[in-house]
């Protein structure tokens, strides 16, 4: 401890009632906030003054083609994530099964679908007719694969199956995070393995699974733009259709950007509430996070 340099710094016990306590001033916070604000204003002003026709952006924000694309983007996000999460959970459970056949299938699935670039997977599904010209039971119920593999179906399969491979790993990590004692307790009251899985393991794994799934959900909103490559008219494809005609490239891309950010913001709020719901019984979790924040502040 540094010794006080003058008598003004010495504190005697009897002085205490006459002294005023001044809270620590966070000068660094104020200074950095001002700098950040200045940078943000600079960027906004630059964009506003740039060679971009903002009235066109405003005009196309609610254009029917754009709104139709927006709906397709949202619908595709939910469909692909539904397929992805369903297959991911099944695959994760298979991976942790005692059955070596199931384990191997899961391992192979994750290996293959994580290994092929997403855009390529979309092309393969869309062009599946090259490998399987017809689909169904020969002679009974058969259709042309080209009729079945619409851009919508190919996109759902392509995006969903690839997502499933990633989600499988997330769910597996979640399941492994559950204390083995919980499983024994479930078995102890006579639960079968499948009941333990549904009632005990998965609900508790959700707490660990949800944050990364929310992350992947948001990632999927933007990943759907890949489907424009196989003629699925999501919002980016809609924007492209317009700017191919009008030539207002950047303007239409800003329109798409605006809607992506809106959708992602709404999903982020939803994620917050779902996570809260599944962290029941973990009251200590928030205070711990708050403590870390205080310490790093």
């Amino acid at each position, binding site marked *: 401890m540094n010794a006080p340099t003058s008598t003004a710094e010495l504190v005697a016990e009897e002085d205490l009632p006459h002294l005023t306590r001044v809270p620590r001033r966070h000068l660094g916070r104020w200074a950095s906030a001002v700098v950040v604000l200045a940078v943000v204003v600079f960027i906004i002003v630059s964009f506003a003054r740039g060679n971009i026709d903002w009235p066109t952006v405003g005009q196309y924000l609610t254009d029917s083609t754009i709104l139709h694309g927006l709906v397709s983007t949202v619908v595709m996000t939910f469909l692909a994530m539904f397929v992805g999460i369903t297959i991911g959970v099944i695959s994760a459970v298979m991976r942790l099964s005692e059955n070596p056949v199931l384990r191997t299938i899961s391992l192979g699935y994750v290996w293959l679908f994580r290994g092929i670039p997403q855009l390529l997977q979309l092309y393969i599904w869309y062009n599946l007719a090259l490998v399987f010209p017809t689909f169904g039971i020969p002679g009974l119920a058969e259709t042309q694969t080209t009729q079945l593999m619409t851009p919508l179906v190919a996109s759902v399969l392509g995006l969903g199956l690839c997502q499933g491979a990633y989600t499988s790993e997330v769910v597996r990590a979640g399941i492994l995070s559950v204390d083995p004692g919980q499983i024994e307790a479930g078995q*102890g*009251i*006579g639960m079968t393995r499948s009941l333990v899985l549904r*009632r005990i393991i998965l609900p508790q794994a959700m707490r660990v699974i949800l944050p990364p799934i929310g992350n992947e959900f948001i990632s999927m909103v933007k990943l759907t733009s890949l489907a424009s490559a196989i003629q699925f008219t999501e919002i980016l494809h809609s924007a492209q259709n317009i700017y191919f005609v009008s030539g207002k490239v950047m303007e239409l891309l800003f329109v798409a950007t605006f809607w992506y950010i809106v959708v992602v913001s709404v999903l982020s709020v939803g994620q917050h509430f779902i996570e809260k719901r599944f962290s029941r019984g973990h009251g200590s979790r928030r205070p711990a996070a708050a403590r870390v924040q205080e310490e790093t502040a």
Partner: protein
Amino acid sequence: MMPLVKAVGVEKRFGDFQALRGIDAEVHEGEVVCILGPSGSGKSTFLRCINQLEGIDGGALWVEGQLVGYRRSGNNLHQLSDKEIARQRRSIGMVFQRFNLFEHMSVLDNIIEGPVRVLKGSRAEAVKTAEELLARVGLAGKAGSYPSELSGGQQQRVAIARALAMKPTLMLFDEPTSALDPELVGEVLNVMRSLAETGMTMVVVTHEIGFAREVADRVIFMDGGQVVEEGTPQAVFTSPQHKRTRDFLSAVL
């Protein structure tokens, strides 16, 4: 009378380690048996074999006259399916060292989970039983709490109530007070003592010599995966016949 639990030459290996080297034991209906022994003696492993949390590698176990883990068909013993094992476990209550309450469920939901989901009983009935059990373990007001909001002693009492909700014929306790702060041990032992007074058949792996001396009808002392000595608490604690028992008792008393 046929014993409720009968073990003949039970063996268990973990890799190269032989945890149980031929355990012979019997527990009769209404009896309280305490299993004592140094750590690593196999006492918890033996307890876990009784409700098949561990499979056995040799010998045989009967609970309520039923062979544990196998079904006889002619001259063959067929290994039971997961479903059949779960069914055998229903009448055996288990209390763990680390409580293992379902963390995502309230105290009430912990207790009614088995009766509702496993026994497929009515929810209203299960809630009524749960409230009676909570009152019995001294936690009448805690039905809505989550396990993380309770002390260790309270959690363990809920765990006992959860096991009792299945109306078991046998209760197994695996070091139920070892993870508790010293001042919380008493409340759990009190609940166990009153349970013993109702005539419940209990097998208790414990280090609580005082509890064993007071409540147990019989004490089994294990060491090195074998039963070294057994008898009334009076006999085992005051005049142990084996040197290993004497050494253990002089270390813990």
